[in-house]
């Protein structure tokens, strides 16, 4: 079975395989580290299997708020390491595009910015990129690729997207998050005044 984890928006964990889908999810976009362990345990219990029934891990790579995003990827990495099974990284927007012929997946990445990816038949044709609320229509043709706005990402659909991509022969070995932004930091420039 596949254990799928996405923490790019809220937290969603799914155990998928053999015609079974168990999912544990919340719409809480803050407490990823609190939920992650409990949710993984819950889907295993719901299906009635032990961790050795998991044969692969799929993690959502974002885009999304960084701190939460990393929790899910870190959890996926160690679960896969602990069971000695493969792990696959998939853009989180792929999960939303499942079942749409053409669409633009749009998610909120805070600081009044949106992340978007345009898909045709589940294949990303443009993005992921950042934009602002007013300029999305400038970045992408929303008549050809209608907007699908997502506030949560389903780990079960992420697993579906991963299976589709593995079938197409895509390389899903990279686990680098889709940050799309450089870290906030300004180089210190020599002596700095701290008084007065």
């Amino acid at each position, binding site marked *: 079975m596949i254990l799928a984890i996405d923490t790019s928006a809220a937290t969603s964990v799914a155990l998928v395989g053999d015609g079974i889908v168990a999912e544990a999810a919340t719409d809480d976009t803050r407490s*990823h580290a609190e939920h992650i362990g409990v949710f993984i345990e819950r889907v*295993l219990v719901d299906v009635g299997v032990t961790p050795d029934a998991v044969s692969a891990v799929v993690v959502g790579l974002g885009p999304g708020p*960084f*701190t939460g995003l990393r929790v899910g990827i870190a*959890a996926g*990495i160690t679960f896969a390491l602990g069971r000695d099974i493969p792990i696959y990284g998939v853009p989180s927007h792929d999960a939303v595009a499942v079942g749409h012929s053409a669409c633009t997946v749009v998610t909120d990445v805070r600081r009044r910015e949106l992340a978007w990816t345009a898909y045709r038949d589940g294949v990303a044709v443009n993005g992921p990129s950042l934009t602002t609320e007013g300029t999305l229509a400038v970045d992408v043709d929303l008549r050809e690729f209608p907007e699908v706005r997502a506030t949560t990402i389903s780990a079960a659909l992420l697993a579906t997207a991963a299976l589709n991509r593995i079938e197409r022969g895509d390389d899903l070995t990279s686990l680098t*998050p889709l940050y799309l932004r450089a870290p906030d930091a300004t180089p210190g420039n020599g*002596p700095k*005044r701290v008084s007065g």
Partner: protein
Amino acid sequence: MNEPLVLGIESSCDETGVGIVRGNTLLANVIASSMEQHAVFGGVVPEIAARAHLEALRGTIEAALREANIRLRDLDAIAVAAGPGLAGALMVGVGAAKALAVALGKPLYGVNHLVGHVGADVLREDGQSIELPTVALLVSGGHTSLLLVRDLATDVELLGETIDDAAGEAFDKVARLLGLPYPGGPHIDRVAVDGDPAAIRFPRGLTLPKDLVHHRYDFSFSGLKTAVARYVETSDDVSV
């Protein structure tokens, strides 16, 4: 009888640390540091530290397993630094530790990392190990804390800590305003050995009698930093 085999993950600041112990014997201690990436910014940048933790996670665990010559399934428990520290950095270790514990079906212990600093003493190879109860003073770039430790696992009381900068942080900030490369604390520490402690009258925080009322066991270093800054700005000839 074998003592418990425990793997610990630490990601509270700019180092990803993975340690493996059997009882009080250290089997592996592998550290990946992102310090060089922070140098140009003159201090630890939380987001850079957090990104580096995720990148280093897998390799650090694998290196520790090799060093200890054990497999993950041999472990009896997982431990993780649960704070204090940089939130985004800590969350990488916490998420990793939780999933690893579930994957292995082993218990997970969240550890206050200040207690971890004190607890490290039981791993010493020579000399006498810590005797409890004890009062521990932690001094580093991140900490200036005074702990009363009656039992490492169950009874640790924070007596006091810095109310502003950590001691090492004060060193680094002073070094920065003197234009020394990061981390500049060690440079100051080195030249201070031959310095004249009475040459300039710098303040010592929380040493007045009235400070005993609310800050008996606390420390303060930001006033010292500000005083050095003023001194540097009003003196033409300052070199270290």
